[in-house]
């Protein structure tokens, strides 16, 4: 049974990590717009950034 003394704190640490990661994502506008980004991979499909747009970044 002693193993739970290791596993449970481990699970709590993972829980804290999950909450932190989620908060980070929310604060960085990942959940503000759930419609537009869903479509962007479709259009990014064949875009190879050209030299000019690389320069822009």
């Amino acid at each position, binding site marked *: *049974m002693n193993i739970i003394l290791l596993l*449970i704190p481990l*699970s*709590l640490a993972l*829980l804290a990590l*999950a*909450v932190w990661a*989620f*908060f980070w994502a*929310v*604060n960085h*506008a990942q*959940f*503000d*717009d759930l*419609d*537009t980004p869903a*479509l*962007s991979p*479709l*259009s*990014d499909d*064949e*875009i190879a*950034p*050209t*030299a*000019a*747009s690389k320069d*822009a*970044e």
Partner: protein
Amino acid sequence: MTACFHCGEPVPNGVELRARVGGIDHAVCCRGCEAAMLWIDGLGLADYYRLRTEPAARADSTVDYSAWDRPQLARMHVRVDAPDRAAVVLLIDGLRCTACAWLIEHAIGTLPGVHDVGVNAAARRVHLGFDPSRASLSTLLAALAKLGFVPHPLTADAIDSLREQESRAAIKRLAVAGLGAMQAMMYAVALYAGVFDGIDPAVRDFFRWLGFLVATPVVLYSARPFFAGAQRELRARRVSMDTPVAFAIALIYLASLIETLRGGLDIYFDSVSMFVFFLLVGRTLEMRARHRAGDIVDALARLQPTLAERRTANGYETVGVHELQAGDIVRIAAGASIPADGSLHDRQCAIDESLLSGESAARRCQPGDAVIAGSMVLEGPVEITVKRVGADTVLAGIVRMVTRAASEKPTLARLADARASRFVVRVFLLTVLTAAAWLVFDPSRAFAAALAVLVVSCPCAFALAVPAALTRAVSVLAQRGVLVVDGNALEALAKADHVVFDKTGTLTEPSIDLAHSEVGRGTLDQALAIAAALEQGNTHPLAAALRGSAATLTLSNAHALHNHAGAGVSGVIDGVRYRIGTRAFADCAGPADSTADDALVLADDQGVIARFRVEEQPRAGVTELLAALHEAGIGTEILSGDSPARVEAMAQGLGIRQWRAAMQPADKLERLRELRGQGHVIAMIGDGVNDAPVLAAADVGIAIGSGAALAHAASGILLSSQRLDAIIEARVVARRTLVTLRQNLNWALGYNLAAVPLAAFGFVPPWLAALGMSASSIVVILNSLRIGPVRRATRASAVVDAGIVQARYA
């Protein structure tokens, strides 16, 4: 004739412009489009042309945005955080597809001095962060205009969008509650297993403290809105749904903590976390519906222009509207909105006042006539003398009236709130009684028994009874094109016994009178087919009417379609450029003919092809709705701003006995008060800005989806499908929701009546108490799920969700 590669409009004869994109020469229609293409290609963003699903808007680089650099104007719209950091939010017209979002992000991001660009295509917003010393607002706006987008800067408070903060906070709370509930349940399973198989007290206490650890953030962070709400209501000496919820959460949590400390019988950290999670899911769904409606209301930002052209001693200067003063003379171009109330100065013109009057026909104004801010000039340019500005305008007055009417609205005594709060008080009394009784007989058992009463009687089922039923009803109705913005609206709709209609735009919609339409060239069917092809995808009522008339015809493919606000649509079919819309727009060269002003004119470059006469006819589903209402014994009435003769004709045709004509918003409000004085519960159905105060004041306001933004803001229910008979279904669902609500409450009461006495006498073992508590909540949720879609009796076709797109012309 070729189409412009950038905007899709036909290239006029004699224009020989070419622009090179991706190594290939393309024809363009004007210098603006040429510049846009060359710029896009120069940035290496030519992929835009391959990815876009809609042609761009015609790039107009002639608009002068330099007025936006005036400090008086910039102060209202730009927030300066640091000397080198400023932020602004723009509402973008012409943001049509994700390729546009991509283009804006990349093209604007390359400008010097721009830190970051965020595009939200759903809300049609662009957030810009820039360095004011290196880039000015006017250059950024001009750059967007160069790409073919029309930017409208929003006021600076839009930067810290309350809505965005609210939705972020809600989603965080939901995540904490969900994750916390999952963990708490895992530890609870171990504890339940321990009850049956035996568990070492040390291990048991360890798991209890773990439960406490994960439940604490759920209660203290996720459940905070419930505590805040209960506190607010208590301070106002009222009880709402938040009161029993907050009490339940606090009691279960504190009781479990005390039991953990004294090593008592049972704890309920898992239940309280689940409870918070379920409630938050309901809250979040409700909030999203509210926000979706709010995005529409933001269109208000564009009702009144922010800039005006003021006449000075030597020409015109562009100033912010808030700088205007009474007595100024301003010039307004055709298709633009009037910035302030005033009187027409120089010449007669047609003005579209549909925003305020709800009447679709344009009004012909003579010099000296009063004009109202927010209405649209159809022929221009004209000059007006400013009389009233800002808060004194008629539009601002109506907005104020809406706010006041909404705050004075008497709320129906809410069934659930009243019963739940009575229940909470009784449980408290019972707990105290139990504790007192046990103190007399056996003090050592007093705390355990009192706690058992509290936990077993947990008002969970009570607290869930209302949100579960409402959430289900809202989602069922949303699939049917009925958006419920305000939960109270459903209860009011179920109880309404008098329905008040606006006439124009609500009961009626325009239709094409084929018998009286004139055809200049070709046959009527040919003209209709062209017109309907041009109006494909347009949500304006007249466009829908044209499509309806041409339903049996085969339509050709139109491309390069452009919607000109306040005027009409242009497009290309088989190489010929057509225009349809107001006479002034479609047939620029034709003679002025005041009798045909409200006709729709179809023309090509050689002149008029056909004039379609427009008449009013009842909106789809009106007769079904009225029949259903009359059958249910509900009173109906028309309150209209239109002339008595037309209102009477419509009322008689539809079988509505009560009607009043020529009513101003204030008259309508007065009539509403009178009806309420007779004890009626009133539902108001309308679409115009002039209906907004009444929509806000009625027990339930229902706005037509294509109506004015202010009407939406004032209503509890929006019909995104344009059919009125959706209200029949909404009413059936609302009534069923009320029944389900009562069942839920009765069930919760019955369960408690059975369980509490047993608990008070100490007969309920802890595992049974937990089981009963969960089971009673699950029964409530399952019962709420029975609110299903209503079977359609009258009509088989699916509701077409036309969306709530604002498109106005003529």
